[in-house]
């Protein structure tokens, strides 16, 4: 009898141990699959952003080099035509109209091309590009944008990092206007020998970060993906009615050279 009880108990114990082991194995496998899925999704997102940027660059270049230059040729030819059209008032008026349209088209093409890939970012770097972006918003809206750039050390940053940080700022400003109805935005760019800090703050409606709606959520997801892509850390702070703030810290890679003397 005692042996029977002991055998039964041993069987039960063995079953429990077996169950625990198998479940641990299954869990580890599930975690591995989950991790792979996550990595795959991240890769997809990174590739998506990368392709988007490459496409933007290509379109901006085509607009500038192909469409822009051809519009300039039309513009020059119109000048020549205008000189010869002085005799006919109807022709002169038509040429003037075409001039108006061509000038608008050139401006629009330039604006689209600049929006797609700001030449300031390419040629002068992140700080100047943000400043230009702030100026353009301030010119066209009642928004008050304050940009401070504090630089204790000048270190070159990868173009890809600059572009991503710039896109993040674009997205944040757009969110502050569209969703937050902010009237004041403060941006600070601080650079020292170790890291680059970007601080963004608005006085908009704010939101509960735990209950982001789908639209805002997607924008934030995009920002987070870009931050992950450049391996930057961030902290977000927002409350309904209390504005929004985001702090980004980009530590320079160890092999990045310092330009300070």
């Amino acid at each position, binding site marked *: 009898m005692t042996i*029977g*009880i002991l055998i*039964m*108990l041993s069987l*039960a114990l063995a079953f*429990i141990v077996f169950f625990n082991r198998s*479940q641990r194995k299954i869990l580890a496998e*599930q975690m591995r699959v989950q991790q792979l899925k996550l990595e795959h999704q991240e890769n997809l997102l990174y590739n998506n952003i990368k392709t988007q940027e490459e496409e933007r660059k290509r379109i901006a270049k085509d607009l500038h080099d192909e469409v822009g230059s051809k519009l300039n040729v039309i513009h020059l030819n119109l000048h020549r035509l205008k000189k010869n059209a002085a005799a006919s008032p109807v022709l002169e008026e038509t040429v003037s109209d075409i001039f108006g349209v061509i000038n608008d088209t050139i401006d629009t093409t330039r604006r689209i091309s600049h929006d797609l890939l700001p030449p300031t970012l390419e040629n002068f770097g992140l700080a100047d590009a943000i400043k230009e972006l702030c100026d353009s918003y301030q010119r066209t809206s009642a928004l008050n944008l304050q940009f401070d750039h504090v630089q204790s050390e000048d270190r070159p940053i990868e173009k890809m990092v600059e572009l991503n940080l710039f896109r993040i700022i674009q997205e944040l400003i757009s969110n502050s206007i569209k969703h937050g109805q902010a009237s004041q935005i403060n941006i600070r760019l601080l650079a020292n020998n170790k890291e680059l800090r970007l601080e963004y703050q608005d006085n908009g409606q704010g939101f509960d970060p735990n209950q982001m709606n789908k639209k805002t959520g997607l924008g934030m997801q995009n920002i987070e993906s870009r931050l992950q892509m450049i391996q930057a850390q961030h902290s977000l702070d927002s409350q309904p009615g209390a504005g929004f703030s985001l702090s980004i810290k980009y530590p320079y890679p160890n092999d990045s050279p310092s330009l300070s003397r």
Partner: protein
Amino acid sequence: MKSWQLLITNSSEIMLLINIVLSMIYFWKNWPILRYFCGLLFFSLIIQAIAKVMWLQKMNNLSLLHLYTLGEFVLMSLFYTQIFDKNSIWKKYLGWLIGSVVVLIIANSIYLQPITVFNTYSKTLTQVIYIAYAVVYFWQATNNQPSPYHSVLKTINSAILLYYTGSLFIFMFGNVFFKLDDFHKIFWVANALLYLIFQLLVFTAIWQFRQTKSTYS
């Protein structure tokens, strides 16, 4: 009864009392699916208290075992109805199983083993069913994504599996033990020891619930 035997028997009863108080505090309000299990613990305490009083009065308390077997089976089955997978075949036919076994237990007490003798048939049948419940739960848990409170149910299930597997033979041959004079006491002490382990595991489950709750809240 020797002092160590008394110690084991009394410890299991004290642990049962502690677990009832703790499970009422932690499980009853916060986790409704464990209400039937809390009910089972409470039901055990009441039956044990009455059985002790009857034993002190030198009365035959075996009738209580018949009542306990029935109540225990209903509460245990309802508890498993709560924790089994919604779509599992077990859950679909559990109602029929409970109804049929309840009829068998009552029929056994009326026709085969009257309330003055040990109801070994009913006890064996119900214990085999509890072991099956526990095995099915473990099997289902292996195929499912674990929930935050999964470890709590796993510990309770382990307690059920260990106790009922260990005590299966004790109850199966209960009537034989009664004829063995002093020798049968050893088996009842073994049962009390298994019950103490059961209660200690339930205590662990309550502790796990408390820890998980503070992590997730």
